[in-house]
């Protein structure tokens, strides 16, 4: 069995009486691109929120790199090596593209108030190296020309790329991408697919939420399917495509067939 990087173990997430996630066990192995799909409201983003510490699971455990991270502080989880993007873009709108990425780089910075006040040599070096690595990331994402523009003023597609750059800046082991291709045309989608593969080849593991089956099938090594908070299938893209439960979840089932929830 491959090395399990991220593992959700029987995670249940309840809001009031509603189970957004119901006994979900999924895992992501080191070095793979795993797709997380499901109809609207299936609980995909809830998985991201549980993993990144936004929600604390009602039951079950989340393990990362062999250690439990359920209930840990959000910024600590990020420091441990999990970074994410957001379904509805959450950049720092008035900061420049470069500064946005630098905030991500700073996740591992040692400078705090005393260091900044005295401006020790190490502080200055850290500032410079964080600027440099932020710039490199912008170049990698192809938006270096926008470095000094406010994030708000970037075209939509660039904002999506900037979010990925900012997440990568925290030096994650696993990158959680929440519908990174939303609103893209087919050409842009396939370009982004290429980019995600390049990111994986650079040593990042990727967990991807995506609606567009063509994107998911073409770039993912493995796919997990959620439906109404339940994990209903797991497998290679070809298997998922022909899985009866998945087809039902996406297309609906005749009314006599019951869904136990």
């Amino acid at each position, binding site marked *: 069995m491959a090395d399990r990087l991220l593992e959700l173990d029987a995670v249940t997430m309840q809001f009031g009486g509603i189970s*957004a996630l119901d006994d979900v066990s999924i895992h992501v192995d080191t070095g793979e691109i795993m797709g997380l799909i499901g109809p*609207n*409201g299936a*609980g*995909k*983003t*809830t998985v991201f*929120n549980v993993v*990144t510490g*936004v929600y604390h699971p009602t039951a079950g455990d989340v393990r990362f790199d062999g250690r439990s991270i359920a209930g840990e*502080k*959000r*910024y600590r989880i*990020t*420091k441990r090596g999990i*970074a*994410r993007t*957001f*379904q*509805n873009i*959450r*950049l*720092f*709108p*008035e*900061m420049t593209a470069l*500064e946005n990425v*630098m*905030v*991500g780089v*700073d*996740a*591992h*910075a040692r*400078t*705090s*108030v005393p*260091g*900044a*006040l005295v*401006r020790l040599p190490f*502080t200055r070096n*850290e*500032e410079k190296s*964080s600027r440099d690595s932020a710039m490199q990331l912008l170049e990698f994402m192809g938006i270096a020309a926008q470095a000094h523009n*406010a994030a*708000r003023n970037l075209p939509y597609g660039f904002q999506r790329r900037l979010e990925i750059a*900012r*997440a990568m*800046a*925290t030096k994650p082991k696993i990158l959680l991408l929440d519908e990174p291709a939303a609103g893209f045309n087919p050409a842009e989608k396939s370009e982004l697919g290429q980019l995600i593969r390049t990111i994986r080849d650079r040593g990042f593991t990727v967990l991807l939420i995506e609606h567009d089956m063509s994107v998911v099938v073409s770039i993912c090594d493995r796919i997990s399917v959620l439906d109404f908070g339940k994990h209903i299938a797991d497998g290679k893209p070809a298997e998922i495509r022909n899985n009866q439960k998945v087809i039902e979840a996406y297309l609906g089932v005749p009314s006599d067939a019951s869904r136990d929830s």
Partner: protein
Amino acid sequence: MIFPPYVLRIRQSVNDRRRDLSAKWQQLPRRVRTFVMVLLVGYLYLLPIAPPPFVRTPEVGFAGVLADQVVIYVLAALGLNVVVGMAGLLDLGYVGFYAVGAYTTAVLSSGHANWPWLATLPVAIAASMVAGVMLGTPTLRLRGDYLAIVTLGFGEIIRISANNSNYLGGPRGITSIPHPPSIHIPVVDWHLDFGVLDAKPYYWLGLTIIIIVVFLLRRLEQSRVGRAWTAIREDEDAAELMGVPTFKFKLWAFAIGAAIGGLAGSLYASKIGFINPDNFPFLLSILFLSAVVLGGSGNLGGAILGAVVISYGPERIRNFSDKRYFVFGVVLVIVMVFRPQGLLPNRRRAAELAHTADQGAGILGEMTPPATELADG
């Protein structure tokens, strides 16, 4: 707010001109800029001796106003600007820290010991910093309006406690707080006496402290710390998820703001020589906040300018006698209507505020970040 077209046109041209000026300034060689700054600062030291035309204070000494009011307000506004402008936390009880600084100096130098003023200064700064951390630790989990209410309560608690504490002299307060020692420069045979007769030495001392504070705050602003504050102000949830320890940096903002407030309080106590609880009313918190907002939240220069206007303004128009606060209030309202982002806004902060204003929030609306939108879509 709807303005007639000519107002908009004037506003546009003023803004354009300002942008041109600041662009030209940026293009000047560094050495020229430093030189100009040195000249400017040098002139500030000469201000009480050679005030510019029209800048004067009828009926009261100009140097006195500079030392009693302007310097103190500028320091307080700089400190509050860290909390409100940089980190985006609304603090309505800032006078509490100012009082802690003043009372610490008073107690140590006159009330229960007789330390020299200079020795009480670091203790006053430390004490208000501790007060900041003590207030911040439980309350910085709150956001927006709730934080504002709790801080408001804190300011009142400090004042009322002082009023009821025999140790702090109750309503009569503490008297005979010493001045800093006189300085004698033998080469030019020049005496610098801190006292009630001549306010200039206090002004010079205050100005020097302000320069040091600005220098340090700029360092923070241009470092990781400033970046973290901006990120927290713009989207606290996203900042935390990008690895910013938001609580720690908010607490730092509180502590630094408190420390500067305490510094201002200590200076004030030594200048006037006696303090009592009436010196620290809620109104003062509001005036400090007005200075920050009027000048331009998030901008060091703005906070300074706002504080100068708030403190010097009423003195300048003393001819209106007891109607001067009314006149002053009207002027403030007019300024805020036509220039809600402040006189010298931080460009980024102004844009944030304009954005929230579009969404129907008030001037300080950014302090209530949008509700978590991380939920499933």
